[in-house]
């Protein structure tokens, strides 16, 4: 341990081990994942999965990234055994690598201050999302989310009222003669959020075998007669 060369060689080898295992290994295994025609369950006709994002959703992903949405929201559903995500209604199955083939950048998130969004498109609609962005407490009274009003604009009604104007409840409605409209960023973000759904069952992500109660899942096997 007194020669610089030994030190460098050792550091190089240990660095290479970690690089091979955590960067090259996954690249070799899942680097070539591709779209598949696959539906595992039921009698549904074969379906291509995943499908690429539509253009406005792609722009919305940029809005999602730029405003740091991933600081509070994750986009991954863990399996039953590793957390209660499915019971909370955040997804119908666990997330797998295939779900993210067309995401760029992939922002899985590291912390949940807000709910998981991996399947947000399954449980919301355009108006719901715009309301949540304008004032989150309109939909969820106890929500902690800040409002993103800078994604909206308020201006005087000229001629007929716009059909796209937000229909807000009286207490936060704009003054008479004004209307609130979503800016393009808000619409793109909403399109992105609506595109988030991981509900096609795959070979590696079949419908979960849900435990009926909160009992330990492993117990069902051993006690079965």
């Amino acid at each position, binding site marked *: *341990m*007194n020669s*610089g060369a030994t*030190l*460098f060689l050792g*550091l190089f080898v*240990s*660095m290479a081990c*970690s*690089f091979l*295992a*955590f*960067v090259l290994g*996954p*690249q070799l*295994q*899942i*680097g070539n*994942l591709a779209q598949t025609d696959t539906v595992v369950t039921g009698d549904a006709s074969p379906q291509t999965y995943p499908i690429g994002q539509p253009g406005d959703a792609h722009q919305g992903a940029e809005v999602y*990234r*730029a*405003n*740091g*949405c*991933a*600081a*509070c929201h994750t986009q991954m559903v863990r*399996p039953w*055994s*590793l*957390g*209660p*995500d499915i*019971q*909370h209604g955040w997804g119908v199955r*666990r997330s*797998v*690598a295939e779900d*993210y083939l067309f995401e760029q*950048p*992939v922002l*899985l*998130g*590291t*912390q*949940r*201050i*807000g*709910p998981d969004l991996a399947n947000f498109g399954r449980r919301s609609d355009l108006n719901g999302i715009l309301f949540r962005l304008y004032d*989150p407490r309109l939909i969820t009274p*106890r*929500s*902690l*989310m*800040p*409002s*993103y*009003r*800078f994604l909206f604009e308020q201006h005087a009604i000229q001629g007929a009222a716009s059909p796209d104007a937000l229909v807000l409840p009286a207490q936060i409605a704009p003054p008479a003669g004004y209307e609130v409209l979503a800016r393009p960023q808000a619409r793109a973000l909403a399109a992105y959020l609506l595109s988030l759904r991981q509900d096609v069952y795959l070979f590696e992500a079949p419908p979960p075998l849900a435990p009926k109660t*909160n009992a330990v899942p492993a117990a069902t096997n051993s006690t079965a007669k």
Partner: protein
Amino acid sequence: MSATDSPARTATPSPPQTSRAGAERVCPAGRLALCAGAVAWLFIALLLGLLDSLKFHDPGFLAGSPYLSYGRVHAAQDTALLYGFAVPASLGVGLWLLCRLGRTVLAGRFVVFLGALFWNFAVTVAVIANVCGGGRGYDYFDLTVHCAPLFFVAYLLIGVCGMLTFHQRQPGPLYPSQWFVLGSLFWFPWIFSTAAMLLLLMPARGTLQSAIHWWYVHNVDNVFLGFAGLASSFYFIPKLLGRPLHSRQLAAMAFWTIALFGGWGGIPQGAPLPSWIISLGVIGTVLSAVPVLAIFTNFYRTTRGDLKRLDDNLTLRFSYIGLLFYFVAAAQQIVGVLPNVSAITALTWFGVAQKQLFHLGFFALTMFGALYYIIPRLLDVEETAWRPKLAKAHFYLTVIGIVISYLSLLVCGVGQGVLLANPAHPFADVMRSTLAPLRVSTAGDLLVVVGTILFLLNFALLLTRACFKCWADCCVGKEKQPA
């Protein structure tokens, strides 16, 4: 300061002693720019953190401006803390240790200064990009395509000078701190260039990005910052106690096991990646108990019975408390990956508490300890030039602030996890219930900010004093010359 100058003459290794006069009478601008820039960015990061923390008191606080929204401020805070503070501080202290332990002068002083300027410019660009929503969105790697090469070049400029300094050392056995500094110098460019290539320049497909990102963050924390902080602990604690390090073999074991297993892990269980990678990460994280135990034993044996000495030296006090926080943060990390615990605590404030304790509790305190020792020597003023009352207040405010913040976030995370484990609890209600501890943590953040202001004040006073001394020396010198 008698302890610092009494060499411990024993067979076991102790930090080599050098006379102060020789090694450091060179221009300190490079290392000073690194250290001063680091502390300034730490202050900015803490302010941004406080701003984010205040948003939990009222979700409408400063929500009207896109530049001050939670997500962007959060990203800017991470960038300022990791790239603004942690990396330059590790470089400044590391270069000083390489000079001191190699009994040599810094190679390429001008290049180091240039590198420090480059680096701080890159951090400024990155933080502004974060606030404007330009970063690529990865936690602790929220950089733009443009500033990543700048960071890399700046690091290489400084790192190559570090290598040259190491190369021109006086012959003799290496002290463990030298291994750790070299390890950190070597580790950062590799992981940073990998992440920059595969996340920014030629992004990998799908969740491979997440795998690379988690690998990078785990390596930055456990290996890079771990090496840089431990280098300082291994030097200052035995030296200032005037005792030899208990065992060089244990230090070597800790070094190699951190290098081997330290970078394995950081992937949340249940992530959409092949299971074997996640399991390998769990194994690596659990195995990192080996270096932690080795370091604990080593320092326990080194410092045994000498805790009273903590009172009479500031550097010793900061380094010692920093090391204690290292053990707590490491233990929490190991417990947190055990499957039963992780099912409850993953993706909650539990992980944030651990990271904060590691970054501020271990790394920042250790660096403060080192800076209290190094800065007067770089400026060639006596160590008593620090105002003792300011320094003492800085110590207590910072430590108490970190403890308050850590404990409240820990309670918050465990509470959030336990409540969410029961699906009958609606998510919004659970998050409401975490507000109380989150608001307590704001008080801790505030104390740390005030402590850092006191340090900056103390630093400014010291700089003024050094400038006056320099000016007086010049004038006196000129008056004497004609005589």
